[in-house]
């Protein structure tokens, strides 16, 4: 989220938290069908951009409306960094959206402060079970909070290690054997930096390149057995030994000259320009990287590195679909639209035309859906393979979730790039942030 967006969100939270519906979703079953014309408002961040995201989304909306003439979907583009602020402002203004594409880190806040409806509370159990059949269990878990499904994973991706095979060859390395763990990342990066003029490695785990988001950091901590907070989401744990151990590894990379505190934009630009050998970031960048590498170097992708012989535990970036309407007819219309967006056809468009992962993994082998496309786009394979190990990007709870996130991310940056004691830095931040958790306030 941008600095202005964060500031606005804080103001909004303070001003309107009490106005915004704080009650849980209504336990009210929706009608079985939509038998009269209804219009639903859909806040979507892909529509706020120009290009494949918007084109793919418009196509999804158009196909759905053609098949469901009673339902009109009014797609409104809202930048992802402003999504929660805008929903809050519009809920306060009495004109909140019926369905929204919410970034996962704000899911708890949207679920508990904006009156989002849990699917189990409004959709008949058998219908829900029928729709969930065939979906990735790990993928479904991404939108579950306190045992209820508040979001269905919509556009989501995992961390992928993109690498420049030409630079590997130039440094005398085998591009068919990319690094599998962080020790190999360090060794490979140092070799490349020694033998070529290129930067060995960059990522958005921590520092400026993280842009305030912790999904990639959570992947690294989980891969080393750590967590940002306890499973009951009451106690922060990002300074505990396993998490701190992962951060110390990042500090070692920095001390060895492998990891710099560079911006997200410059990392992507350097990778695109052929100036960086390895780039660990969201698979959503795949299309931009392919376009940048075209005619210049061979771009390849590998799974996220783990620790030692243990495979990585990736989390997801991206968004889920959340129903915010309390009108039963609009809830039904929104659910019908959600079902289409997360159907085999929906994920086929999302994967092939926007560039995200399918939550229905069986369609990648189905010639009616993605089989041919996957054959032509091998870079998606590491991404698909990681789905089996996917863990949710856990959102911090309560209305202070952004302050908690910022406190943690600032401490992480300080611990990795600041030169101080890692344990002490993380412990101080953890104590400070714990006071902002809901059970402490």
């Amino acid at each position, binding site marked *: 989220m941008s600095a202005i967006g964060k500031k606005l969100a804080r103001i909004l939270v303070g001003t309107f938290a009490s106005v915004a519906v704080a009650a849980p979703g209504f336990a009210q079953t929706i009608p079985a069908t939509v038998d009269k014309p209804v219009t639903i408002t859909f806040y979507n961040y*892909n529509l706020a951009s120009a*290009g494949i995201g918007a084109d793919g989304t418009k196509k999804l909306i158009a196909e759905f409306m053609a098949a469901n003439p009673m339902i009109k979907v009014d797609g*409104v583009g809202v930048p992802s960094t402003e999504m929660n602020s805008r929903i809050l402002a519009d809920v*306060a*203004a009495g004109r909140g959206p019926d369905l929204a594409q919410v970034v996962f880190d704000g899911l708890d806040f949207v679920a508990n402060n904006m009156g989002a409806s849990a699917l189990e509370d409004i959709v008949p159990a058998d219908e829900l079970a029928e729709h969930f059949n065939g979906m990735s269990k790990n993928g479904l878990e991404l939108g579950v909070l306190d045992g209820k499904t508040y979001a269905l994973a919509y556009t989501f991706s995992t961390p992928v290690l993109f690498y420049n095979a030409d630079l590997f060859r130039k440094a005398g390395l085998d591009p068919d054997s990319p690094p599998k763990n962080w020790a190999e990342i360090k060794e490979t990066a140092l070799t490349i930096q020694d033998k070529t003029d290129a930067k060995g490695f960059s990522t958005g785990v921590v520092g400026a390149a993280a842009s305030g988001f912790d999904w990639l950091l959570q992947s690294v901590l989980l891969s080393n057995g750590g967590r940002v907070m306890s499973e009951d989401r009451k106690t922060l744990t990002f300074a505990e030994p396993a998490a701190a151990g992962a951060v110390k590894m990042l500090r070692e990379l920095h001390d060895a000259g492998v990891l710099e505190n560079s911006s997200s934009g410059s990392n992507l630009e350097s990778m*695109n320009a052929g100036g960086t050998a390895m780039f660990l970031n969201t698979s959503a960048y795949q299309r*931009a990287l392919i376009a940048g590498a075209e005619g*210049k170097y061979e771009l390849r992708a590998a799974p996220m590195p783990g620790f030692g012989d243990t495979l990585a535990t990736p989390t997801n970036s991206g968004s889920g679909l959340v129903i915010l309407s309390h009108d039963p007819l609009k809830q039904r219309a929104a659910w019908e639209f959600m079902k289409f967006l997360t159907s085999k056809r929906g994920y086929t468009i999302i994967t092939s035309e926007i560039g995200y992962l399918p939550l229905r993994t069986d369609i990648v082998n189905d010639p009616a859906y993605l089989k041919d496309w996957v054959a032509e786009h091998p870079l998606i394979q590491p991404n698909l393979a990681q789905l089996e190990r996917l863990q949710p990007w856990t959102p911090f709870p309560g209305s202070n979730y952004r302050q908690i996130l910022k406190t943690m991310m600032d401490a992480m940056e300080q611990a990795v790039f600041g030169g101080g004691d890692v344990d002490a830095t993380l412990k101080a931040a953890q104590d400070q942030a714990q006071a902002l958790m809901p059970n402490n306030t």
Partner: protein
Amino acid sequence: MTTETLSLPMSTSGLQSRKKRRQANLAIAGHALMIVMSLFAVFPVYWMLVSSLRAENHIFDTALWPDAASLDNYAYALSAIPIWRMLWNTLVVSAAVTFIQLLTGIAAAYGFARWRFRFDKFVYALIGLTWLVPIQVVMIPNYLLVARMGLLDSLPALILPHFASAFAIMLLTQSMRAFPKEVLEAARMDGAGSWRTLWEVIVPNLRGIIASLAILIFISTWNEYFWPLLLSRSAENTVIQIGIQMFITQEGTSWGPLMAASSLASLPILLIYVVLQRQVIQSFMKSGIR
């Protein structure tokens, strides 16, 4: 003696010549420095134009001119977002805000400069204080008001909260207070009322500062981003700054089209600078650096 008389003028002439040479050298060095600084200032604009002509896989090349310059990015940008509509919207909003702020500013400033009334200093101070309030603080109440008026996603909503500007009122008040009292007295003796004095005596004589203020208001409204971002719901009803931002996506930034859209967006402002160069510089000097 002769030698002395001859040598003295030569010596003076030599000194003068050396002085002239030194002055010339200093002037050349000064100009060279200014040329370098000008190039430094112009380079980002040049780089924006050059980048808008590069192909996607050469967008980060460092060559001063692309091998194969193309207008593809412009074609794509024009097809991806309604740029002309957005430019028109931006022009309408900027022109309307400029006109309205000048009108309210002149009227309010005339009141403060011409008459003493109860609590006038207090009211003036309150207006000054509003200048110090960050836009984020008033944005949400304004948003709720606009939403309740049913004006979301419309150009009037972009204009409405900018009807009055503390900066314009204060700048014009100071200028009107400095206006020669004798001229006002002469107008009064000629039978001119307050209204006529304002529009036929004061405003024509303050056209320099009013023009400067108009340029500043126009440019700052043209560059406004956050309020339109909060208010707009469709590409057709928004301004060009939001359009430019649309090329920054979750899937990476489309630099080529973004630079093409930025080049088109900066054209009107560039035109103002070229045509009204002297007034623009004066406006910044009169108002302080903004």
